[in-house]
């Protein structure tokens, strides 16, 4: 199987501001990759370069194509949901399906109908009359019905309530299991996607600060709740992040022998959210 995305030394400058600073990563087929960063960290810019929506420096190959040059061919194989509802308000649900069916060679109308049948949406409703949650459901139904190799989701659940968010990821996951495809998604609600990611990319101020498979995180990172009398000993092992919670000291270590750490307190694998906060704060100037 071929690599889905290969980015090398990807840079993007808006005036003096470096939105991306020599970012390199690869996406392998069949993975669910979370691109995680704060607002303005460069997440959307990464996605835009992959989708050929913006010029960049460096090299990007998506499914063996150059996104900017081959955008049209690429869009037959890549699907994209942007952060906030971008379906036009004047379009009706039925027309939205007609349109995608008309222009997209890989659209399967029956599948879209199946996904939509699970919702309470009326076909004659205009998008402007739907709630944000319903619009996202519609967009997801359209996109899941496209036999795409790469699905790019930019903050797909932003502004949705808990029920819609849960439904969104359930639908996505069910579909993912049905047909092997690669998903790249950005979010800052890390806790909600933590369990479905196979890989994480942390991005901070235009730089990649972590690129790892979630399965490897346990091997690579340790979270130590330090026994009060062992704090100095633990500090000597150079944690990359320390924080105090309810009078207890928690330290995060990278690539340190677990045996040595276990003697200093309670050892655990950090969650992705904790790891994200630690990595971002450790990288802060």
């Amino acid at each position: 199987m071929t690599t889905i995305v290969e980015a090398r030394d990807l840079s993007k400058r808006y005036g003096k501001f470096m939105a991306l600073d020599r970012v390199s990563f690869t996406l392998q087929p069949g993975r669910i990759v979370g691109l995680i960063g704060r607002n303005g960290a460069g997440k959307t810019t990464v996605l835009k370069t992959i989708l050929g929506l913006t010029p960049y420096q460096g090299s990007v190959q998506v499914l063996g194509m150059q996104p900017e040059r081959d955008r049209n061919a690429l869009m037959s194989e890549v699907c994209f949901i942007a952060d906030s509802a971008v379906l036009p308000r004047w379009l009706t649900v039925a027309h939205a399906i007609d349109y995608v069916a008309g222009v997209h060679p890989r659209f399967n109308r029956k599948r879209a109908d199946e996904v939509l049948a699970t919702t309470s949406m009326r076909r004659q409703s205009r998008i402007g009359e739907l709630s944000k949650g319903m619009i996202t459901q519609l967009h997801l139904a359209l996109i899941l019905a496209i036999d795409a190799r790469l699905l790019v989701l930019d903050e797909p659940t932003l502004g949705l309530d808990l029920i819609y968010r849960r439904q969104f990821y359930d639908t996505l996951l069910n579909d993912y299991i049905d047909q092997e495809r690669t998903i790249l998604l950005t979010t800052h609600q890390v806790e909600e996607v933590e369990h479905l990611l196979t890989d994480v990319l942390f991005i901070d101020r235009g730089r990649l600060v972590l690129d790892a498979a979630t399965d490897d995180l346990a091997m690579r990172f340790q979270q130590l709740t330090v026994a009060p009398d062992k704090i100095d000993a633990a500090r000597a092992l150079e944690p990359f992040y320390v924080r105090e919670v309810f009078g207890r000291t928690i330290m995060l270590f990278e690539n340190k022998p677990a045996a040595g750490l276990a003697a200093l307190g309670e050892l655990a694998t950090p969650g992705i959210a904790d790891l994200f906060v630690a990595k971002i704060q450790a990288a802060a100037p």
Partner: protein
Amino acid sequence: MKALPIQIQREFWEHRGLWIVPLVIAAVMLLAAAIFGHVNLTFGNEGRPYDGPNPPPVAELMALGWAVPFYLAAAIQAAAFLIDCLYGERRDRSILFWRSMPVTDARTVLVKLLVGLVLVPLGAFALAAASGLLGCAILALRNHDVVINGLSLLTLWNTAAWLRMQAIMLYGLLAAMLWYAPFAAYMMLISVWARRSPYAWALLPPVLLVVFEHMVFGTHYIGRIVNGGFGEFLHLAYGLKAADAPGRIGSYSLQLLSPAQLLASQRLWWGLLAAAVMVALAMRLRRDRDDS
């Protein structure tokens, strides 16, 4: 090519006025014909009933008069459409959705140009002709008892003349599409470029340029370009001099058509070249623009 019908439909979904307004005009005119259609016709000759040697061109005048409101509305609507078509999708951010589909920017721009420049005028023509014929039938029924100089008004009807007039108008529309293509392209370029108020951007700069040129240089070159040259167009397309057009209004003959003269016009070809450049620019701008 399979996608073309749905792409065209999509424009009419968004800009519903493009098909609603002509239908409303047709309905209003038919209704007006039915209600107010009983007339006491007089033709020229100081209000006396017509008694000249040549029958008045009733069919031609019906065809032309009936079509004018449709063409005026189509011109205004086409302009409004072209100015909005690439701006609206950025205003509501739906451009991200459109661009996530496998449709090139070039194709999107061309389809919108096709709708604004070709389909809207042709639709107006078709609807004007169809409703006009119906209107003629209604007027004939309402006025069947009108007698002029012993002849029923209905004898003045001439189907061949009516059809000939439609052909003359259709030719004019096709010629106007070529002639006004640079204006359509200019509006699309403004539409894809303006960050806000595309209507103001489309109208103000040409006006200001004309005023500026006149005040500083005292010349009118830009004015001659931006006023559309309707007189020159009529002259070229129909072999008419603008001045004697009213005098020859009675002779609606196919010999009026002078496509060779139009196609030999330099202004036409410069205009088409400008249109091609502006359309290419619009495609490029839509592709490279990143302000979503």
